């Protein structure tokens, strides 16, 4: 399908064109009593378009995107599973979407009950019973948990504990969250099995240790099988263990982080609990902690007393991380998902996610280099072979070639511990046929790559644009239409 360039809204703007009117406006009457120094002469120069042109504009833009509903999207660590359409229909209903955040608790009992029960179920699934639904996304959850850790340390007077261990395979948000919460980062090496190196960890632990941030399964798609010992080591050193729950899809219903010795973790509801990613959000990053740490959680908690739900601030709460009660309509969708799955369904998610990842791995591992080629969890990391690299082909070329084949590429160049990484996470909602077809494409591209096929350097050629010059966007920044004119 030919997708022509779409003008910017501002370029298609014509004076006087309108899509939406509000009747009864009278500027003179409306500005009565306002100091003239506070008033603007003309309203902001937003674009002016009619309704049909506006509809076409955004519909045409949408056609220039890949999305789960159209394309297989095996983006590692992002859990691009099917986003059930019934949840969208439910979340749009007035009884959920029409609630004002400051209306009285007794007029929002359904909403509070939903949040209460969702928190309870997330606590049960993680084995960490104290849950806050407040954080807006995964990184926001990390920051929340680190502030909880800090409050716990401060209460104990352990102000010297300011170092957080972070494995070198961690997501970038982990070290960034440490800095934002005033901790310093100590990087822990991975061992030759792709796991956290216990000797290196032991070397760094001490009186200044605040804790460890670990992703499990890690970003190589491998379960940290020493996790119980790792938690014990950190606890013995006087710290707490935080788990990045980005990869919780692999173990949901199979094992619980609380049982490993994890003290705190976040969940990405926009990953594990199937809420849509929306082109980069909104997410929701609930934090689940042990009972000991409940008192530090951010405001508000939802408590039930005699069948009535209300919002309550924990005694030693770190405070607020944002306004109001969290990304509530995301919570509604996640609640729907948990209710649909039930306990059995939750386990089936993990089983099928891990099955799909391993199936895809064995279909391609003869053609690609898979550095840790053993039974993996929900994702695995591959990389180009030496022959491909010798032929001048890089991971970026593979990713772009996949786009030409109608697939969203896996995560590339991450984790950093694997050079030229290609991290694939198929998720449980994909069928065997989809995986077979994708594997065939990966094998075809492997052959092209080994032959140094120019196609790979030119790709993509089927999209509205070819490769985009990212350096120029920095060298000659244009960040809005006629900025500063």
């Amino acid at each position, binding site marked *: 399908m030919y997708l022509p360039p779409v003008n910017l809204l*501002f370029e298609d703007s014509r004076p006087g064109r*309108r899509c*939406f009117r*509000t009747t*009864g*406006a009278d500027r003179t009457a*409306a500005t009565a009593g306002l100091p003239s120094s506070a*008033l*603007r002469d003309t309203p902001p120069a*937003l*674009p002016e378009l009619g309704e049909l042109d*506006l*509809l076409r504009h955004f519909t045409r833009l*949408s056609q220039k*995107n890949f999305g789960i509903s159209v394309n297989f*999207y095996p983006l590692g660590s992002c859990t691009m599973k099917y986003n059930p359409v019934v949840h*969208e229909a439910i979340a749009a209903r007035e009884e*959920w979407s029409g*609630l*004002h955040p400051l209306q*009285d608790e007794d007029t929002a009992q*359904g909403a509070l009950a939903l949040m209460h029960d969702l928190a309870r*179920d997330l606590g*049960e*699934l993680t084995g960490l019973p104290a849950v806050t639904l407040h954080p*807006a*996304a995964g990184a*926001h959850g990390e920051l929340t948990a680190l*502030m909880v850790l800090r409050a716990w340390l401060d209460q104990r007077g352990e102000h010297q504990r300011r170092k957080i261990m972070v494995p070198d395979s961690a997501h*970038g*948000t982990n*070290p*960034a969250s440490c800095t934002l919460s*005033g901790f310093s980062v100590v990087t822990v090496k991975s061992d030759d099995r792709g796991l956290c190196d216990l000797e290196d960890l032991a070397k760094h632990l001490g009186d200044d240790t605040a804790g460890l941030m670990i992703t499990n399964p890690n970003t190589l798609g491998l379960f940290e*099988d020493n*996790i119980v010992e790792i938690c014990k080591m950190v606890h013995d050193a006087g710290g707490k263990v935080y788990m990045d729950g980005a990869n919780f899809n692999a173990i949901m219903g199979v*094992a619980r982080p609380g049982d490993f010795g994890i003290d705190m973790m976040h969940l990405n509801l926009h990953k594990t609990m199937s809420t849509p*990613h*929306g082109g980069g959000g*909104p997410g929701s990053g609930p934090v689940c902690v042990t009972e000991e740490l409940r008192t530090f959680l951010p405001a508000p908690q939802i408590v039930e007393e005699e069948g009535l739900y209300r919002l309550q601030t924990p005694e030693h709460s770190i405070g*607020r991380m944002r306004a*109001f009660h969290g990304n509530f*309509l995301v919570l509604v969708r996640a609640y729907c998902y948990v209710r*649909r799955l039930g306990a059995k*369904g*939750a386990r*089936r998610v993990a089983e099928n996610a*891990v*099955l799909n990842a391993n199936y895809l791995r*064995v279909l391609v591992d003869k053609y690609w280099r898979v550095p840790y080629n053993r*039974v993996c969890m929900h994702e695995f990391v591959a990389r180009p072979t030496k022959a491909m690299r010798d032929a001048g082909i890089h991971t970026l070329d593979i990713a772009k070639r996949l*786009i030409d084949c109608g697939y969203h590429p896996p995560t590339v160049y*991450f984790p950093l511990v694997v050079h030229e990484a290609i991290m694939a996470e198929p998720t449980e909602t994909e069928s065997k046929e989809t995986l077979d077809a994708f594997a065939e494409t990966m094998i075809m591209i492997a052959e092209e790559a080994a032959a140094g096929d120019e196609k790979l350097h030119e790709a*993509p050629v089927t*999209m509205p*644009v*070819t490769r*985009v*010059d990212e350096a120029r966007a920095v060298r000659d920044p244009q*960040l809005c239409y006629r900025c500063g004119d």
Partner: protein
Amino acid sequence: MPYIQNSDADRAAMLERIGLSSLQELFASIPEDVQLKELPAIADGLSESELQAHLAELGADNQPATGSCFLGGGFYDHTWPAIVDHLMQRSEFLTAYTPYQPECSQGTLQWIFEFQSMIAELTGCEVANASMYDGSSAAAEAVLMSMTQTRRKRVVISEGVHPETIETIRTYMHHMEAEIVIAPLDGGLTAWEGLINQDTASVLVQQPNFLGGVEELESLAAEAHAAGALAISSVYPVSMGLLKSPGAMGFDIVVGEGQSLGVPLGYGGPGFGFFAASSKAVRKLPGRLVGQSVDTKGRRAYTLAFQTREQHIRREKATSNICTNNSLIALRGCIHMAALGPEGLEEVAAVSRQRMLALVEALEQSGVPRAFPEAPFFNECAFRMENEDAVQQLKDSMLEQGLHGVLPLSRWFDNMDGIFTLACTEKVRPEDIHLLASLAASCQTQVPA
């Protein structure tokens, strides 16, 4: 099995291909003693129709406003055109990830560029980012950025900034050796006298403030700059249809909550935060930025820009830890702003304020005066009754009539007994204004002075 397509036969064939004999063997790397022996204790799964019925039952315990919603306090019950909801269900927008692969994400990238452009125009700033979680966390990030830029550790915040925003800033700054100075409200507007000095990193003001007051901004920006501090404003975007933008008055950073731009109330989220600043600050901005560039054939194309500020590249040295933002909701704002255009935004602002003027007049006739008569207001205003009981009585009697409203300020402020706010949007029905006024009149007479 909900949403899983493979059959038992598929699973058997796949296991065989892997070389395993059971699903259980997939989890062999998890120590056996920490594997669950039983299923987690959560309720059994529901079918789709059972789910619908369950949520309908649960939802019946909620009372969204059936009449007009006079509640404000940061979220406002504005209307939006059907085109917004319609386009939101385009699954290519809904189910896409962050646009890290620009060639198959030009749709998302172009609308973000358009969103940034419109937010910059609205706020009077040179650049805007792709969105933040919400208005409060955006304000917190703005304050942090001002400290980085000025290398100073003292911030002066108006008491009229949303109390939950101030709480958020306090949480974000708790571990820092930084000083937060609150500039008090006096007669409903901020009194800054003597608080801004040479150690000040920034001043933060909210326009209109939490009590509805329209603050004097121009002199504040000048005073901040004279001290070498940055001026930060949080704005209610609809008010920009009539009020001068902070950017035009010299503010360095303008943030805000975008919910009033076509986003449902949603019990407080997700809305979207916006973050705009001067272009010289671009390398210090938190969050994603989209820039215009070209493809290998020289055609216009969009891509994420300045990614070296961000956590996935810079890790512990990033300007912020933000990754996922509130993109899809910002798209609502983008479509809504384009549907309104300049006149449409002015109309919404004007009608909202006209309703508020009518409400002020009606309440004054009912014996309920403005609490701070000297402070100009926009679409939200503080009123005074004899005592808290009268306020509660008004609130209850409104609810009986299906009207939401009345935020008692004693919840957040000392010495504000009997004072509450009401807000109006263009959705408020004139007949509900009269109903509210008559309810207020009867509450006033029933409560002994």
